[in-house]
């Protein structure tokens, strides 16, 4: 229903309605969602860096198109309906129209996404770093950004260093006292 009214491709998985739209219609889609579908509550905006070159964390199991996926979630304030909108941006100089005019709360989320992924939000009134100092170079949440601490020391890795004991040792004297006493 949502996909029909905003013109996109809907995909429902694990109780999450995800509607993929084109980046050109990004602002229109959100305006429609807010005005026609009554999804007035702006929950969050963020992005995913789909990359085959993963510097920190596990690599993907299969090759993907290198791209950025920008996500927003908006909801209503009566029944608890929520929709996640998604759009894809090219890996080189990604940019998209800002949502600040539709949902004021997108302001900080877009600034965060800008500094963490390097995605430019056109029309944003104040697109500067949010968390990091202005002199910070790099976009930490890109998969190509290595995590220095993990380079220096691999632990804690993906598996536990010590094996879990199969069976815990039985206490030497089974205590019969009340544990709270």
């Amino acid at each position, binding site marked *: 229903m949502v996909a029909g009214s905003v013109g996109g491709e809907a995909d429902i*998985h*694990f*109780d*999450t309605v*995800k509607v993929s739209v084109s980046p050109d219609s990004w602002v229109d889609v959100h305006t429609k969602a807010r005005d026609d579908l009554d999804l*007035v*509550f*702006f*929950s*969050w905006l*963020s992005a*995913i*860096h789909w990359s085959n070159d993963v510097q*920190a*964390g*596990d690599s*993907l*199991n299969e090759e993907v198109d290198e791209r950025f996926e920008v*996500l927003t*979630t908006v909801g209503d*304030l*009566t*029944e*608890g309906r*929520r929709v*996640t909108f998604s759009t894809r941006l090219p890996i080189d100089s990604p940019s998209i129209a800002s949502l600040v005019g539709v*949902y*004021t*709360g997108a*302001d*900080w989320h877009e600034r965060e996404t800008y500094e*963490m992924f390097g995605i430019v939000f056109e029309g944003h009134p104040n697109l500067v*770093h*949010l*968390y*990091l100092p202005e002199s910070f170079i790099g976009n*930490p*949440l890109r998969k190509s*950004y290595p*995590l220095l601490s*993990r380079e220096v020391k691999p632990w*804690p890795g*993906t*598996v536990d260093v010590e094996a*879990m004991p199969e*069976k*815990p040792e*039985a*206490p030497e004297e*089974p*205590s*019969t*006292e*009340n*544990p*709270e006493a």
Partner: protein
Amino acid sequence: MTIDTDAIRHLSEAQVSVELETEDMTLNIGPQHPSTHGVLRLVARVDGERAYNVQPVIGYMHRGYEKLSEVRTYPQITAIVNRIDWVSGYANEIPFIVAAEKLMGLDVPERAQYIRLILTEMARISSHLIFMASYPLELGAATPLFFALRERERVLDLLEGVTGGRFHPNFNRIGGVKPAYGSGSATRKMIQDLPAGFLSETREAMDQVLDVTDELEALVAGNEIILARTKDVGVLPPEVAAAFGVSGPNLRASGVAFDLRKAEDYLPYHLFEFDVVTGENGDCWDRWWVRLQEIRESAKIIQQAVDGIPSGDLQAKVPKVIKVPKGETYVRAENPKGEMGYYLVSDGGQGPYRLKIRSASFSNISILPWILEGALVPDIIAIMGSLDFVLGDVDR
């Protein structure tokens, strides 16, 4: 500070009837300030007592949890999500664990769900009691702090009795809660499940919490000065709140009866009776009042859950090495501060490919430039305090 002698000379020369040449002052509030709940910094242009163009500066506590999650396994992540909103650490675990379980298709045993629900509500009570303690302090009344913290200690003791941790329980496991060991004595099993006498003590503690809410109401709500300081101060209309993504008690204080405990089904809240409390004006007073009522509702939920807790397993069958199948989901929960959600993207590995953390306080304080425009300096503190944020929840 240097005195601008030129300005003074200019004044004396120009005689009396000339308008005073005033200069705006830039006032930095924080990052070290008693009322910024940590390391929030506000830069305000102050004209006398009135503040304009208030800009929050955040990031002093940015720990990069979203990046860290990408290099950790699912069981390890529960330990870091605990530290997002540290005054209700337990509640932060729930949406993450539920998201992982959803992707794995696990059915969590009912007893584990009840335990989760009881502990989540305890986390809510302790978080709201911190607000009850700190808010009057920000208005200058020190005494309610001690009454509220005393009660919070009772709740934290219970939480500690079950989980072993006061602030960072790390008690949830994917598929349930921390299990009893497979073997060992009966006593040991009991320690790992709920401690002996936990249910009756909880019931008693909840009665005491209900008593102390009456006490707090008498102490604070009956005080004319508090009313004068909070009524019609920092009014937040519901439309503005929604557009900024303000959620939780702050949103309900503006009159929106929206509670994710009713709207979503991450825990079996539909089995219990409780009211969604709303305010009328959306001012500081309503935000205080809504939280007080929520303590009462939470105590009621806990009492019902304690009465109806079923017996049974604490954990679903899960493989030893947890791998979450490929998929994406967004799970959100009603945390004490508001909507807390995790957008979990899994590629079938032992750790998430991407974990977006939607924390409540981040959106809640993005309202600050709007709501503080033209406020008096004392009102800045009153409004900030009433939004009840935690910097760990803002910066993540």
